[in-house]
């Protein structure tokens, strides 16, 4: 790895450490309803929202009500988005649809996938935004979820924290109040300031139609633009990741320079990192929060270093071919494929690690082009269940779930009924936590297995039809349309779902595995290289995203409810302390071991074997 890469990681991490405490303390105050420096300015707005929506601020909800409110909120948002996306062609005023895109681009399956994707904070994009979405769709239909899903995630995390901090309580807080506060006091101010800085840094914010320019070579090129900055900041801050442009943060309008790049990855981690401190603060022992932070940090740093080292060491075939892969003062060396020259290996691998640790999914380079080991890092990050800082709120509640499993085993090992933050971990909690683990594993492995072997219709090969052969096209069995690339021209039937991958072999397998891991983990980054805009991938991806989001949240809310109702056990010498180095090590061990054991066979047939194919080390048995 390079000195440059090393320093970038450390500087970035140093800033995150510095942000964690103040932001975390601020959020703790916000969610406890205490006064902050923003109280006088924003409180009237908060009160107004409650009045308009008829929210009773002091109502306390049991976990079931909380869960129903969350589900209703998400369901309404998803249906709304679906309808708005399908009708985007009709919403054409005030320059909100200068390109005149409509329902033809937004097919039903794609609209479903997209609606689910943004509702679940995944922001998987099976479409090319420039040619598919109107400005209205970007700014309203999708962007509302960038706020809503982020606020929901934070609310769930806070509810779970309350499970630990309350004793013998019936309720775990008020979903509406939590989401409103998350939006008004946390997301809004940061997004406002950040958005303005982005504009100053060169990110466009306008409603102009795309411009056609003549390049230096004399060719015509269409330059897409629009209200980018406002979308960009919340995309990062809410760990959403859905780009305004297809190239996402690799596009110079989304991510014009290294300073904005740094701000973007800071925006990704700041709330998830801060929430660890909020957790400690709310349960009355900030060391507990730092322990979680420590476990996340160790895994983040390891991933960042490994990814950087793997990319910097490059592809051995290049070296064999006599291409220089060493770093010099003028050359980055290593593997630069799929990376922006502006960012280089350091900023690209750091971005890749951060975006997959947190369930953001924005990318500033193509993970598909990484070396097998370099690509394994983002993939493994996602497979952990997005608990390395993770999505806003989602990371914390995911990590707490692993803490519950870890504490359960550790508690037995010290000879006591396990307890975490003074709450006994018993049958119900273990049941719910295991339910999450196995549903997520089933979802990722099951859909990967399906897509690695399905064909529409069985045994079919890929066929294309141009307009002249429309009659032949009509003869195809209806099943074939399940793997038909939407709005492709000429019309493209891929047949086997493995044909959607860009590469064959182990790498193709990695592409499929990565897609379902990303969808289930609600990450949304693509390994790229997979053609996802077919009914098969749209529908399976949608199911994976919904399962990954809600089958995680609901059991965790149940845990929150069960914990809140419990008494708090006083700490003694016999209690195994969960703010120690041993606990941090244990937690890391549980996260790595549980996921490594679950996904080892899959990883072995994907990136691991690819790595050994590329760098043969030893004679096989």
């Amino acid at each position: 790895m390079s000195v440059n890469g090393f320093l970038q990681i450390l500087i970035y991490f140093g800033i995150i450490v510095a942000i964690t405490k103040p932001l975390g303390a601020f959020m703790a105050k916000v969610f406890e309803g205490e006064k902050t420096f923003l109280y006088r300015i924003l409180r009237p707005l908060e009160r107004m929202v409650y009045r308009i929506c008829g929210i009773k601020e002091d109502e306390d909800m049991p976990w079931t009500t909380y869960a129903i409110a969350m589900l209703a909120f998400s369901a309404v948002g998803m249906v709304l988005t679906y309808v708005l996306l399908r009708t985007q062609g009709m919403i054409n005023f005030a320059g909100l649809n200068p390109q005149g895109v409509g329902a033809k681009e937004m097919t039903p399956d794609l609209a479903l996938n997209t609606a689910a994707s943004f509702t679940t904070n995944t922001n998987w994009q099976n479409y090319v935004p420039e040619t598919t979405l109107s400005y209205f769709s970007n700014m309203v239909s999708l962007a509302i979820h960038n706020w809503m899903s982020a606020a929901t995630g934070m609310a769930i995390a806070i509810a779970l924290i309350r499970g630990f901090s309350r004793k013998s309580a019936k309720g775990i807080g008020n979903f509406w109040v939590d989401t409103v506060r998350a939006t008004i006091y946390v997301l809004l101010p940061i997004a406002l300031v950040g958005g303005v800085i982005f504009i100053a840094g060169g990110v466009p914010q306008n409603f102009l139609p795309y411009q056609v320019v003549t390049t230096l070579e004399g060719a015509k090129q269409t330059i897409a633009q629009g209200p980018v900055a406002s979308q960009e900041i919340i995309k990062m801050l809410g760990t959403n990741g859905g780009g305004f442009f297809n190239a996402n943060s690799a596009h110079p309008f989304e991510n014009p320079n290294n300073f904005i790049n740094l701000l973007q990855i800071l925006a990704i981690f700041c709330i998830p990192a801060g929430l660890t401190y909020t957790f400690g603060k709310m349960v009355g022992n900030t060391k507990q929060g730092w322990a979680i932070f420590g476990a996340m940090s160790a895994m983040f740093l390891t991933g960042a270093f490994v990814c950087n080292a793997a990319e910097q060491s490059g592809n051995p075939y290049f070296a064999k071919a006599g291409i220089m892969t060493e770093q010099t003062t003028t050359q980055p060396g290593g593997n630069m494929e799929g990376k922006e020259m502006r960012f280089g290996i350091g900023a690209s691998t750091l971005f890749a690690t951060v975006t997959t640790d947190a369930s953001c999914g924005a990318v500033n380079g193509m993970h598909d082009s990484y070396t097998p080991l370099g690509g394994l890092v983002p993939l493994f990050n996602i497979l952990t269940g997005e608990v390395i800082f993770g999505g806003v709120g989602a990371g914390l509640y995911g990590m707490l779930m692993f803490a519950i499993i870890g504490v359960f085993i550790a508690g037995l090992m010290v000879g006591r009924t396990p307890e975490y933050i003074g709450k006994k971990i018993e049958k119900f909690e273990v049941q719910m936590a295991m339910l999450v683990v196995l549903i997520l594993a089933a979802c990722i492995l099951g859909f990967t297995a399906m897509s690695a072997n399905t064909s529409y219709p069985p045994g079919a090969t890929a066929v294309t039809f141009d307009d002249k052969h429309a009659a032949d096209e009509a003869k195809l069995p209806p099943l074939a349309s399940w793997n038909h690339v939407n709005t492709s021209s000429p019309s493209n039937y891929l047949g086997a779902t493995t044909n959607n991958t860009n590469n064959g072999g182990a790498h193709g397998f990695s592409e499929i595995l990565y897609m379902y891991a990303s969808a289930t983990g609600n990450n949304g980054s693509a390994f790229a290289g997979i053609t996802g805009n077919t009914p098969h991938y749209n529908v399976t991806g949608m199911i994976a995203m919904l399962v990954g989001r809600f089958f995680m949240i609901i059991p965790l809310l149940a845990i929150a409810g069960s914990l809140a109702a419990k008494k708090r056990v006083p700490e003694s010498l016999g209690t195994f302390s969960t703010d120690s180095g041993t606990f941090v090590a244990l937690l890391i061990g549980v996260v790595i071991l549980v996921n490594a054991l679950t996904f080892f066979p899959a990883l072995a047939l994907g990136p691991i074997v690819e790595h050994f194919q590329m760098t043969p080390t030893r004679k096989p048995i």
Partner: protein
Amino acid sequence: MNEIEATNQRSRKSTKLFEPTILVRACKEAFFKLDPRTVAKNPVMFVVEVGSVVTTFLLIRGLMEHNKDNLFVGQVTVWLWFTVLFANFAEAMAEGRGKAQADSLRKAKTDTIARRLVNGVEERVAAPALRKGDIYVCEPGDFVAADGEVIEGIASVDESAITGESAPVIRESGGDRSAVTGGTRVLSDRIVVRVTSNPGESFLDRMIALVEGAQRQKTPNEIALSILLSGLTIVFLFATVTLVPFAHYSVRAASAGEVPSITVMVALLVCLIPTTIGGLLSAIGIAGMDRVMQHNVLAMSGKAVEAAGDVNTLLLDKTGTITIGNRQATAFHPAPGVKEQDVADAAQLASLADETPEGRSVVVLAKEKYGIRERDMESLHAEFVEFTAQTRMSGVDLPGRKIRKGAGQSIQRFVEEQGGSMAPQVREIIERISKEGGTPLAVAENDRILGVIQLKDIVKGGMKARFDQMRAMGIKTVMITGDNPLTAAAIAAEAGVDDYLAEATPEMKLAYIRNEQSGGRLVAMTGDGTNDAPALAQADVGVAMNTGTQAAKEAGNMVDLDSNPTKLIEIVEIGKQMLMTRGSLTTFSIANDVAKYFAIIPAMFFVTYPELGALNVIRLTNPHSAILAAVIFNALIIVALIPLALRGVSYKPASAAQILRKNLLIYGVGGIIAPFPCIWIIDRALVAMGLA
């Protein structure tokens, strides 16, 4: 050897862990337990059994078709069956000792004839005909026909059939020693007993059921752990099942090799699922109960033993637990103007006829320290005045001399009645002695207080160290005593307990327990009297003394057959050990999977992806030997860990952090490393024997 160790030695009259008869019986049982209905109770082992059936079927088909890998399939099948058998064997071993004990208990349950009293008329009926509320008579040589309460008379009873203790015990009507147990034998005197339990619900019945484990219910933590293990099993099932389509893809993509056979997939699945802990889980629970039994404590449920490991607060009776039961006279303090010699003389006179240990110690002290010899009561024309609850003093009446000893207030009243008074100096002495943890007994002659006898509680040897250990384990010890707060504080300080409850009444005990529990703490206590019953019932772990009343025994969730209150401490340790064994083996079992993956995955894709051979870090010889070695290791490790499961992991009281670090190192890190050399050895052995 101090006193506690001595009792421990006595109570550990245990049978050896692997006694031949138990071993033989366990081997047989292991096969009976293959019944799918039995195995189904254990999801992990059930999966293994289903896997065994599948490979057996494949083997039979293979034999008919003369496949070339029959040797491999056959070996996998055999070892899969062995995996189930080994787990069954472990459980049978754990149950073995209990069964042996149950057999001997059943012998005590002979069909005796009871002499039932109906309206004062005796009639002979078979013991099972007795019902709750019936009354029967027992005379020397009679077996006690049913559990009951002595309502008339006093008798010495041989309870060895139940407690194993050969010395007879006294049972009498009224008071705290009124309970008799069916199956025991009256040695002397006649007692009338009221039956307190119906046939089939007796103490002996319950005991047999308990030691046999027939009514064994899973404990809360065991259930939670089972859920975790089932969850992991399902996760690994997904990982293995989806590996088949993954393999199809890979074989197509690489255009080489073939999809691993079902046998190999089953082998991988069985290796991955937590069979080690799954196979030993119930054995650990049964063995834990059994260890409690070896200490001669009857736990009414495994839940109680498990709760003992969680206890935060331990309520211990002072007398008999912390101090040796009797107080001893250690000094005489004269009142102003009285000679020490005279106090000693009067004290000895007052105690001559006092047969209590305290009284004897006064006589002995006077003799040893002041050379006053014992005198004969009759030659002195002395009349003994017995202690009564009203007067709360005792003494002698000599011609012209009334000598009394007793509590300060009682003696004060005594001298005041005769026109005397208590000097302030005497009151000071009394208070000082109390403060130092002693019991003051004032001595008076007629209207004059001569002085004060200092009685002292003797704290048992080794208690302080015990309580220090408890503290290190995070357990608070509380001494319960009827003494006044001053005395209690002094003894508490000497014994090293964390807290004390002085002048304790049953209501206060109950209130104290409730208060602790409302703070989320678990409380354990011992008790024997009927008035302890509410507190015993309220406590999370209530250990009733076998000598205690029926009410106490029913209220508690454990009965100590030796009636040794110190044992609570050991029960706590056993409870902890039980959980620790489960946790450690779970960690070990999961950590083992790493090595198994490294052995099996490269072997599975030997042809398809030869590059994966790089993962074969221990250089296993060939695909068959690698897979077999992992399967065999997986089976043998169960057997290897049976002794550990039965004995429990080693436990020394230490803070949670230290224990966790130690166990994580041994069972976590050790669990990752250990399988590599083992699998390697098995691999080489298989190759050497030509089996793979």
